[in-house]
């Protein structure tokens, strides 16, 4: 049975217009929270630019929803730039977003570490700086599935992106300077590690068929969020073993001190039921307890996805008082909301 031969059915009108139509839907669903610039494919905080506040801009290819558009709002992003599915946006969009959210205190670009995202954001920062705007960039690269990253494009930015946007956004809301807000994002990235596993592939609206071919008893271990194959293929195993495959490389790299506290983030890649994500979270907390690591904060759900891919990623963030307080600070976005 060739999975790649299958057609993945989707609710679309035209592959070319999926992203703008979805953006129009976001605008219609969340008036008062965000506004959408359809020409530049931007989701903007409704009241942007916020005078005197550091502006936070992120973005990337589409297909990872709710990232980034669903994370725009009070206490998180000021703007999200949407590219085509799995394709980084262009510098013009990012520069337009930077202009739109600059409140006079500078703008932070939160960039996932993919060649396309990095190069386009770099060009955008140059454009904005040429116009006299102050821009800082933080590149997120938390995916420990990428090895010998020195000789490659480096680790991918995955789950830590959501955490960095939340915590840096909270710092900006509290009136932090551009340096302080960027510092929080860098700290989150340094103290986070992630690992992902796919049970199925996914299909872009343009192609309509799964990107890779996976047997009925196979899983891809070490995948990112673009439907790309992972580091290796394994036989399907019980959830507790799969969680072990994910936690081991994370803990090996993060080396949390015994008795230390982490934020445990179990993220669905899009097609895995919440029932299973909670089962996975249960395994994560059990196995962390065995390692003497306590779960201080947690997040379970679909936040950084790969279209309809069945699978999950685990992200651990080593917490301290500052990060814990920033996590608990109010946030008001379509996908993450509390305290307001």
């Amino acid at each position: 049975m060739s999975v790649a031969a299958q057609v993945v059915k989707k609710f679309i009108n035209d592959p070319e217009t999926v992203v703008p139509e979805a953006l129009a839907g976001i605008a219609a669903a969340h008036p008062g929270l965000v506004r959408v610039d359809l020409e530049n494919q931007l989701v903007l905080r409704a009241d942007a630019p916020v005078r005197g506040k550091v502006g936070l801009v992120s973005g990337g290819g589409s297909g990872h929803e709710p990232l980034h558009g669903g994370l725009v709002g009070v206490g998180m992003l000021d703007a999200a730039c949407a590219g085509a599915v799995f394709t980084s946006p262009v510098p013009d969009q990012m520069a337009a977003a930077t202009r739109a959210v600059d409140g006079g205190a500078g703008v932070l670009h939160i960039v996932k570490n993919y060649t396309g995202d990095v190069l386009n954001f770099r060009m955008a920062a140059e454009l904005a700086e040429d116009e006299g705007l102050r821009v800082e960039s933080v590149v997120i690269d938390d995916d420990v599935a990428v090895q010998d990253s020195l000789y490659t494009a480096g680790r991918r930015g995955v789950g830590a992106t959501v955490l960095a946007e939340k915590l840096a956004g909270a710092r900006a809301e509290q009136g932090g300077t551009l340096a302080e807000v960027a510092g929080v994002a860098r700290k989150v990235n340094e103290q986070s590690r992630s690992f992902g596993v796919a049970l199925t592939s996914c299909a872009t609206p343009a192609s309509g068929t799964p990107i890779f071919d996976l047997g009925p008893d196979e899983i891809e271990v070490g995948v990112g969020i673009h439907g790309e194959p992972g580091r290796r293929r394994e036989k399907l195993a019980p959830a507790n073993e799969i969680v072990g495959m994910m936690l081991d490389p994370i803990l090996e790299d993060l080396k949390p001190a015994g008795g230390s506290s982490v934020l445990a983030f179990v993220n669905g890649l899009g097609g895995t039921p919440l029932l299973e994500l909670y089962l996975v979270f249960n395994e994560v907390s059990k196995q962390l307890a065995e390692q003497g690591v306590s779960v201080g904060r947690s997040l379970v759900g679909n936040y950084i996805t790969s279209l309809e891919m069945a699978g999950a990623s685990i992200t651990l963030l080593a917490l301290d008082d500052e990060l814990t307080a920033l996590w608990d600070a109010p946030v008001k976005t379509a996908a993450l909301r509390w305290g307001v």
Partner: protein
Amino acid sequence: MQVTRWMQECSAAIAEQKDYLTQLDAAIGDADHGSNMTRGFAAVEQKLTELDGGTPPGKVLITAGQTLVSTVGGASGPLWGTALRRAGRALGESETVDPSQLADALAAAVEGVIELGAAQPGDKTMVDALQPAVDSFRSQVDAGAELAAALSAATAAAEEGMRATVPMLARKGRASYLGERSIGHQDPGATSAALIVAALERSLSDER
């Protein structure tokens, strides 16, 4: 020299190979290279119709490069955009382009890609098709070869470089995440690069 003609040939050739390029990218990337490049060169073709005929070749290339940057996204957008802009700058204001000017422009293009993307030959990227093409064009021209001969040498070198990416282990771009698993697949960016060099040959060789 008909830069516009070159860009039209690129647009047609890439659109024709769109699905093939996307398939190659599906194997070691994220299955969007075909649509990325097609979208970009279609926009270039459109944009160039707005320039008046007298625009010097260098300016046309700069416009084409800016258009790619503004419409492609992904890794290939900034890289190809930079390549064409650097080539354009190398040509400056001159109304005509002789073979050695063209060699300089192509060299500037590859340098731009390497400067921005930090890929070395052998990293399994577009550079592996572009560098040999540029080098062989230069040496043919220095040896006093006909333009047409130099161009077909460049096309042959690009295609050879493209095929040479198959056994390579990717060290740059998405394919690098696959490690060993990237071996045995032809790099999509090297493939579109070969199409672009071949388009250059077609657009110039039948100028006379």
